[in-house]
């Protein structure tokens, strides 16, 4: 009898030690399991490097602008026929749901892949159409290309030659006589934490109700 009590106590102590020493890890594991429509992207190896871009008012948009609040960040371009207006309308809807539920409303930032056509002015009239608080961000193409790396975002320009779609490489110039192009691109929405780092990502298609559920879990983790 005494032996079995001792065994139970030992097992209990052992279990407690395991729980205490691995609590940090199990917290994220639990969170990961609870998430419905997002992926946890916390990764110190993929920290956002120092960047300096331009917002739609022509002001500097750098690391400091992502600090002290949650941010939802989306990449796209204003000539985008389907994916970007869908994403921006989704984010407007999402903000309404978060407000209704009394949850923190993240800043929404739309970063263009297309600096050639998307000036600060163009971006301003575009993003504020969806929500007056949305922020459009542009810059030099090399700066944007550098900024998107830790997100794992990707884009490619597509032109039409003799009725066929052709994908251009990064260094290709738009040929003379071609006056428009599309951009194929990844369409994740990213959640950035108040320390200005990538925290989670929502792949397309975006289900706003489920996104709001996940944002509650993520911002309260």
């Amino acid at each position, binding site marked *: 009898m005494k032996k079995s009590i001792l065994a139970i106590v030992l097992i209990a102590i052992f279990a407690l030690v395991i729980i205490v020493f691995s609590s940090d890890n199990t917290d994220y594991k639990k969170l990961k399991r609870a998430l419905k429509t997002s992926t946890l992207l916390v990764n110190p190896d993929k920290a956002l490097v120092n960047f300096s871009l331009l917002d739609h008012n022509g002001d500097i948009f750098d690391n400091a602008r992502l600090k002290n609040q949650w941010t939802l960040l989306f990449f796209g371009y204003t000539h985008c026929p389907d994916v970007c207006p869908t994403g921006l309308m989704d984010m407007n809807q999402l903000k309404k749901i978060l407000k209704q539920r009394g949850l923190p409303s993240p800043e929404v930032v739309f970063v263009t892949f297309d600096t050639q056509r998307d000036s600060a002015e163009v971006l301003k009239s575009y993003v504020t159409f969806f929500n007056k608080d949305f922020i459009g961000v542009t810059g030099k193409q090399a700066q944007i290309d550098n900024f998107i790396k830790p997100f794992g975002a990707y884009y*490619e320009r597509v032109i039409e030659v003799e009725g066929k779609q052709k994908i251009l490489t990064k260094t290709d110039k738009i040929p003379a006589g071609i006056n428009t192009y599309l951009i*194929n691109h990844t369409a994740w929405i990213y959640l950035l934490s108040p320390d200005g780092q990538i925290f989670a990502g929502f792949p397309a298609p975006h289900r706003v109700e489920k996104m709001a559920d996940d944002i509650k879990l993520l911002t309260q983790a």
Partner: protein
Amino acid sequence: MRINGVGGIYFLPLFLAFIYALPAFAEYKNQATPSDIKIINPWVRSAPPTASVLGLFMQIQNHTPNTVRLLSASAKGYQRGELHLSKQVNGVMKMIKQDSIAIKPNSTTTLKPGAFHIMLIKPKSVPNIGSKVVINLVFDNGLSYKIDAEVKAKNQPHSH
């Protein structure tokens, strides 16, 4: 009697005309009729005043036993319309231009954001929410439809 006589006079040419017209009737029977295709809830997604392209969406019902193809779409006040498919390939959203959009026999094809859709390119001016855009759709069975699509500020036809 007189009436019968008159009838007799007219009967032969009428009968001959009928016989003569029979192949035409048969042909008419094989031809598409407007009720073969129904366009349900056409709408244009509202866009910023500087937008270079707008999305046009709808459901297309095919009430015939044959596949019907939408060949083209055009709209008054737009440079041109193009048929497209938004498709995710290895995580990248691609805009794939379509020569046509098929509607299978006795079924419905839905044009919606993130799937098949019509791109209305280069508007003379971007229409306001609630206004109507006059659209012309051409199908491979020889039919074309003129429809009014309302401009709506939403992503899905049934969301508000």
